[in-house]
């Protein structure tokens, strides 16, 4: 590949050419460049509607790419240091599920930490894989699960030599990274595939002074959420693969569930986001880091809050920390993270990513402006001044290690009954219960419901967390296995 090739954006060029050709559309979408839906066109703009086209000869087809999409994917692969890159338009969820369904067939084992996104365990419900959970470190004070140690990975591999793959978060939602390089050496030694959930790590590939990316560490497959920190449109994502992966089989797996009408708006955004990151990524993430480092120092200077960062590194459960994540521990001012989240939203018109029991997380990017960073800091100061209270009576620790009784798929499809939440202690859960975000299940299908977990769920609900995953939309009832 020529040196300057990354300034190209093949899909972008093809779309522009298509628009200028004024092709007569007798195909879907029926809005025909927006003319069939004036109100939407007026709101979104004509260009946007005109780019919303279906696959056709000059624009290629995502299900079986041979033209400009293939070229755009090749440029993306090069940019991420992967052998292959697949554009995904059904969210990173689809990328995560495709790589898991590629790696494990029904009843095969996969080794993974429990603090994964729901999409991971969903893939096991759909695909029938059997999870073997790694012990993650837990930070008692912050109440969050950390990364996994390389030793623990090796131990679990030796205990489960029949497992097919290992999956690692790189990083976790809170920015915590495991020693992915050593873990990749271990999985190679044992002939297992290593998968990375890089939903929160797209920037690792393009910035300086950031944790190691999965591809650079030798990981076999990685699901990268371009739309989270990479600047593409929501729901667009890439799945990366190394030469150890059979790309044609992987494409088949992706096509099992991915739409056959892939959105050109989403794919275009992937093409241009990749180009932008290659051209400007270093600068973008340098600015991001400056913003976050400033905000973190200021917030730590306010007193009461703890904006944590790389001091958490212990070279075991926390090998590295993604400093672009602004995670703030709020429990010392007597407020749950979720309460701070709600006050910021309702009183200060500031929307952050999420609040859990003890922390909040704000996503900072180069798209922010200094004045908005100041607003966030000042609002946190005001919240402390106006609302801080005694912290006694607050829930101590967030992360509860679940007890797995049955594999997720078996539990999900078993005969079940609906019970009032408070009557569920000792039963086996057949569905998910989680706060969203972060979307890490509190309970997954096949896990035993304990008093402590029920207490935690009530507390989270009481503090305003949105619970979901259960058939009962209010999560007052939980479906448990019939005994």
């Amino acid at each position, binding site marked *: 590949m020529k040196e300057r090739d990354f300034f190209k954006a093949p899909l972008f060029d093809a779309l522009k050419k298509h628009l200028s050709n004024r092709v007569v559309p007798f195909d879907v979408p029926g809005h025909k460049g927006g003319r069939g839906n004036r109100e939407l066109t007026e709101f979104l703009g004509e260009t946007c509607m005109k780019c919303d086209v279906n696959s056709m000869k000059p624009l290629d087809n995502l299900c079986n790419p041979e033209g400009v999409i293939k070229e755009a994917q090749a440029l993306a692969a090069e940019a991420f240091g992967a052998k292959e890159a697949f554009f995904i338009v059904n969210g990173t969820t689809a990328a995560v599920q495709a790589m898991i369904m590629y790696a494990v067939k029904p009843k095969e084992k996969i080794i993974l930490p429990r603090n994964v996104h729901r999409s991971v365990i969903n893939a096991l419900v759909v695909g029938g894989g059997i999870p073997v959970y790694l012990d993650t470190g837990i930070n008692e004070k912050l109440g969050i699960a950390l990364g996994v140690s390389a030793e623990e990975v090796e131990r679990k591999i030796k205990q489960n030599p029949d497992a097919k793959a290992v999956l690692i978060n790189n990083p976790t939602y809170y920015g915590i990274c495991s020693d992915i390089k050593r873990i990749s050496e271990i999985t190679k030694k044992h002939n297992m595939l290593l998968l990375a959930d890089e939903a929160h790590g797209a920037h690792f590939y393009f910035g300086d002074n950031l944790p190691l990316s999965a591809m650079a560490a030798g990981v076999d497959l990685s699901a990268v959420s371009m739309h989270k920190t990479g600047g593409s449109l929501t729901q667009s994502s890439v799945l990366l693969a190394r030469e150890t992966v059979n790309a044609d089989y992987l494409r088949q797996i992706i096509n099992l569930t991915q739409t056959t009408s892939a959105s050109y708006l989403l794919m275009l955004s992937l093409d241009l986001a990749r180009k932008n990151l290659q051209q400007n990524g270093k600068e973008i993430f340098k600015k991001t880091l400056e913003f976050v480092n400033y905000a973190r120092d200021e917030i730590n200077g306010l007193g009461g809050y703890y904006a944590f960062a790389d001091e958490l590194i212990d070279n075991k459960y926390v090998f590295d920390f993604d400093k672009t994540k602004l995670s703030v521990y709020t429990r010392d001012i007597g407020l749950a993270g979720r309460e701070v989240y709600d006050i910021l939203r309702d009183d*200060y*018109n500031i929307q952050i990513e999420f609040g859990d029991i003890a922390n909040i997380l704000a996503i900072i990017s180069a798209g922010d402006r200094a*004045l908005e960073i*100041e*607003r966030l*800091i*000042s609002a946190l*100061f*005001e919240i402390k001044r106006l609302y801080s209270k005694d912290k006694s009576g607050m829930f101590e620790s967030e992360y509860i290690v679940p007890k797995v009784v049955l594999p997720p798929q078996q539990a999900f499809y078993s005969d079940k009954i609906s019970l009032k939440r408070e009557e569920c202690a000792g039963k086996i859960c057949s569905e998910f219960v989680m706060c969203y975000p972060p979307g890490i299940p509190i309970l997954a299908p096949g896990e035993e419901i304990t008093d402590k977990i029920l207490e935690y769920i009530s507390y989270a609900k009481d503090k305003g967390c949105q619970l979901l995953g259960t058939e009962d939309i209010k999560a007052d009832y939980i479906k448990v296995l019939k005994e």
Partner: protein
Amino acid sequence: MELWYSENHTPNVKFSIKIDKQIVSVQSDFQRIDIFDSFDFGRILTLDGFLMITEKDEFIYHEMITHVPMAVHPNAQNILVIGAGDGGTVRELCKYKCVKSIDLVEIDKKVVEVCKKHFNQTACKLNDKRVKIYYEDGLKFVRNKTDLYDLIIVDSTDPFGPGEGLFTREFYGSCFKALKDDGILVNQHESPYYPQDAKAMQRAHKNIKAVFPLHKVYQAHIPTYPSGHWLFGFASKKYSPYYLNKEKWNKLKIKTGYYNTELHEGAFKLPNYVKELLNG
């Protein structure tokens, strides 16, 4: 040749002033700063194309943002002014002997430099020894201050640019904290007339109301601002704006072109549609 400066007051309403010549055009880190000489309004200053002050009518704005709170507070000594790099507000404050210190916080140093050089009518007191200028973000500055000021004057640009943070609840809350127990906050409060301005005005009022026990709005007629009808916010911990010692203020013999103590009381009497907007 005809040279016109135009500002869109709404997408469909345009306000234009015929220009004699352009004096300055400079891009700072924050905004574009222009100064023109016009025929009917004298020298004018614009930021990012929005008119800030004109030589002819700036007295109205600066007198009203300053003398209203100064006539109410019995002894305002320590004053914080945020924004106001043109110096007009400081010029009015310097007319009071009781004032001991004025902290001026302007985010854009270039505005002060340009005004010192080309807008002496307003910038004339920026070198007064009571004045200390800080070039930083107003929100950040005030966040770090507690129980310090008798009066805070927020002489900001519109809330659609660098001035955005100065219309927020966190800003007013920080000001509350930075004021003494009997402190007063006065702010540029936008116009009630055109819908977009009115919306900003309502938001600002709602945010002030959430923070200060006493909150009133007063008005002035400023010919070159959108619709000409302009509002100011008067927020206070203790003194009502009607707590006004007319005799004492008039004895100061401060020469004004717009403000007087009768107008002071009248300025708080608002048209019905404005009252409705404020209560809405």
